[in-house]
């Protein structure tokens, strides 16, 4: 006897179709690029048609989909999966290099949308691949940064009711704060802030180029990097990532990477006239404090251990590279201003540590997130206190507001699960690489697991900032695709789909 599904699959899929059709519009950007550079544009036209066609087809399943709370997980998880699958089409159709292999293409695409920045490309250059392909790779990160769903909620009026639940499942961090009575307006505000910062950033990068401070940062590069900094992406059309650019560019990138790791809701409050919104926020202060502290620590370690800080060693260099790498790896961007894989053990240990921190909630950064660590620290401090005073009743506060005990438990559960998945990842990658006899170091495996789960991108050794994930066996790549996927959606939206209870009861 066939039992009934308790998930409205038709409505869910129809909505996924709508979102895919919307996403297909994004292919216009590489098409225009291809036209400008006189490159093959049919790759993108076909991809666009396929995405839109499939999307519209799915949409036929239910002309008026009204997904409930339960479908939200399904819709979000599958939108991201399908976006990555269709986003991989241009790589396959272009047929150049390692990424034309379907698994590699999916890896690159998933790494793009989830703003991971891990690559399987062998030669990263616009000469090998076209300008259009490289820009599409950058664009996937920009779309994934603030979120496909958030974008859809901002644009599609039909998501006015269920939108909050969808956004909740997609947005990093616990809970969505509605800024305005209409969720669509909230989504629009977030995207406008995101677009605003991106435009400002591109203008400043190009400004540096025009004033002669950044000879390499031409218009193409400025736009390409503009697409991957604010979403904490990390892809670069340059093989040497940010090491290819002048110190002036690197200094400019640091604050914008930092901004990308800040809760975008705070920018909205700032713009709305609350000038102290940022500094009054506990999570922001914690984020700023951690980044500053770790930067100073790393600067000292770099100096003491005489690590390679580029062609012009000195305090400025040490500080710049320390700040760059700390900001980049803390909030999961994954840019590198220098090959930090060549740094000393102690310096690398500090970098590995910050990889577990993550950006702020409501930012585009991945990872465990500052807020969760803050709550964990606060509640641990409470545990210590109540072991001295067993009768004391001490609620945990954040920004002056009391946190629900249930929410704290949820944060513990999330963090523990996250760490468990990370550890299991090491084991699975170890077994799989051993199976094929791929020679890989311990720290390489450890960093590969956290760099994909945390949407960071580069790690150490074979997955270092100037290397890539290309040599892993196919099974490992599939596992890492899964890790990027569940990491971006913060575990639960994907994991619940794997439970029987979700479908049956």
């Amino acid at each position, binding site marked *: 006897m066939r039992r009934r599904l308790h998930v409205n699959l038709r409505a869910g899929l129809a909505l996924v179709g709508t979102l895919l059709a919307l996403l297909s519009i994004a292919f216009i950007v590489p098409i225009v690029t291809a036209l400008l550079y006189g490159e093959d544009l049919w790759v993108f036209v076909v991809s666009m048609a396929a995405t839109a066609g499939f999307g519209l087809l799915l949409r036929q399943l239910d002309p008026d989909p009204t997904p409930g709370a339960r479908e939200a997980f399904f819709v979000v998880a599958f939108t991201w999966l399908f976006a990555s699958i269709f986003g991989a089409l241009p790589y396959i159709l272009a047929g150049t290099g390692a990424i034309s292999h379907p698994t590699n293409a999916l890896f690159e695409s998933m790494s793009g949308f989830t703003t991971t920045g891990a690559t399987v490309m062998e030669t990263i250059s616009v000469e090998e691949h076209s300008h259009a392909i490289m820009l599409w790779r950058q664009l996937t990160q920009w779309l994934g940064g603030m979120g496909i769903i958030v974008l859809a909620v901002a644009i599609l009026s039909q998501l006015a009711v269920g939108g909050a639940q969808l956004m909740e499942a997609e947005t990093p961090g616990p809970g969505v704060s509605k800024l305005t009575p209409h969720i669509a307006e909230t989504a629009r505000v977030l995207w406008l802030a995101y677009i605003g910062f991106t435009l400002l950033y591109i203008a400043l990068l190009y400004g540096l180029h025009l004033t002669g401070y950044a000879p390499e940062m031409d218009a193409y590069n400025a736009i390409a990097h503009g697409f991957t900094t604010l979403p904490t992406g990390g892809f670069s059309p340059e093989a040497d990532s940010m090491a290819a650019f002048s110190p002036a560019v690197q200094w400019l990138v640091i604050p914008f990477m930092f901004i990308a790791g800040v809760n975008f809701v705070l920018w909205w409050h700032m713009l709305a006239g609350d000038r102290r919104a940022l500094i009054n926020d506990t999570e922001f202060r914690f984020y700023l404090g951690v980044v500053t502290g770790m930067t100073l620590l790393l600067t000292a370690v770099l100096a003491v251990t005489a690590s390679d800080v580029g062609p012009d060693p000195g305090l400025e260099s040490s500080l710049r590279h320390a700040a760059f790498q700390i900001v980049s790896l803390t909030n999961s961007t994954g840019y590198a201003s220098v090959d930090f894989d060549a740094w000393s053990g102690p310096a690398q240990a500090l970098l590995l540590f910050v990889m577990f921190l993550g950006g702020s909630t409501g930012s585009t950064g991945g990872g465990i997130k500052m807020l969760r660590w803050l709550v964990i620290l606060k509640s641990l401090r409470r545990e210590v206190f109540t072991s001295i*005073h067993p*009768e004391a*009743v001490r609620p945990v506060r954040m920004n002056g507001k009391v946190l629900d005990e249930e929410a704290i438990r949820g944060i513990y559960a999330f963090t523990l699960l996250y760490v468990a998945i990370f550890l299991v990842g090491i084991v699975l990658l170890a077994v799989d690489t051993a199976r094929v006899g791929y020679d890989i170091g311990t720290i390489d495996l450890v960093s590969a697991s956290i760099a994909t789960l945390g949407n960071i991108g580069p790690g150490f050794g074979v997955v270092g900032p100037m290397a890539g994930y290309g040599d892993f066996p196919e099974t490992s790549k599939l596992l890492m695709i899964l890790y990027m996927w569940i990491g971006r959606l913060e575990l639960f939206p994907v994991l619940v789909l794997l439970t029987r209870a979700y479908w049956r009861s």
Partner: protein
Amino acid sequence: MRVIVVGAGEVGRSIAANLESSHDVVVVDRDAETVEELTYGLDVLAIQGDGTKLETLRQAGLDDAGLVIACTDDDESNVVICGAAKANGDTFTIARVRRRTLLETWTGSEGAFGVDFMVCTDLLTAQTIFRISGLPAAQDVNMFAGGLVRMAEFEIGPNSPVAGSTVREADQYDSLTFAAIFRGEEMIVATGETSIQAGDRIVVIGSPESVTGFADDIVCTHDTDADEVVIVGASEIGFQTAREFEEHGFNPRLIEQDHDRARECAEALPNTMVMENDATDAEFLAREHVDEADIVVAALDGDEKNLLVSLLARRLGVDRTVAVIENLEYAELFETVGIDVAINPREETAEEIVRFTRTDHTEKIAMLEHDRAEVIEIEAGQNSVLTGREIADATADLPDGVVIGAISRGGRLVTPRGTTVVQPGDHVVVFVDSAVLDEVSQVI
């Protein structure tokens, strides 16, 4: 002036008793027996009826009433009574409420609910508790002239250096006036020759520094500032007291037995350490070093429990115990068995309301020894018996039982001596025996 008092609970009754001789008081209550009792017990007109009914208010003479005081036990009713009275007559309205949120809403929106003055019982009590505890060994403390003048009542212990000396010997402070001494049931207006005995309760009026200094030096005290505060019972009063201490920079401890209430308070009071336990658990109190507390406030629901907690705290060695006592009759009894201060929320409320019914120039009033005497603040007008004369001459015209405690002139404190001349516009803080209060308040 016709005054309508709605609700003849302890507050209403206390107000009525206070105003019966100087005003035409009409008391409205729903309970027939209470009305009957009031008719014979006080010189007021008592009417049985529902105060929220317009008809009842009209019957009580709303049309020519100058003041309506709503002090039933129900907050909403009180607000409705004031609103109705305001809409139907030209009258001043006073509402008594328990919930602080109502007070805050009213304060935040001028003239809301048609209430001209609102008294929040629990907040008032909490403020009183805080005021008292700030000063070592003070039994009752009140501020006048915007904080420039302080009045305090102290009990003189057997070891006190002033026990056995005269007032003249004890008075070594520039700006301090010894107003009166309560000895058992007796009230003595202080003169230079009055001798001070152990067990006396002495009333002083003066600058805050001199009152504090007097408390520190003369009255047997130990450590000066009370910063270890323990509040037992998160009743509304307990909660408000904790909040009051918090707002003044203290980190009080609040002990509450009920799990949910403890959590609720802990959430609302970030600087208070809330503990969930039975406050009569001696082992717990010892473990948390409650014996080292400077002050323990018993604010549980139930006078007996508060007595028990206070006595327990006393036994542990707590310096000072304050108990919230709902039953007026108990207050005196409790103080005799060793509780330092018994605070009655209703008395505090009545006190606050009565000060509004005084003639216009009375700005502040404090009742002493359960209304044996009062300390009032007045602004000296042209026609006052005090104005333009030396104090020695002026007091000669006043009945016995009046002491000029302090004068505030243009925001500065003037210590009254026999030759001081009161000028129009001065704020004068006067100690008055309740027996001559009406007579005095008409001439000054």
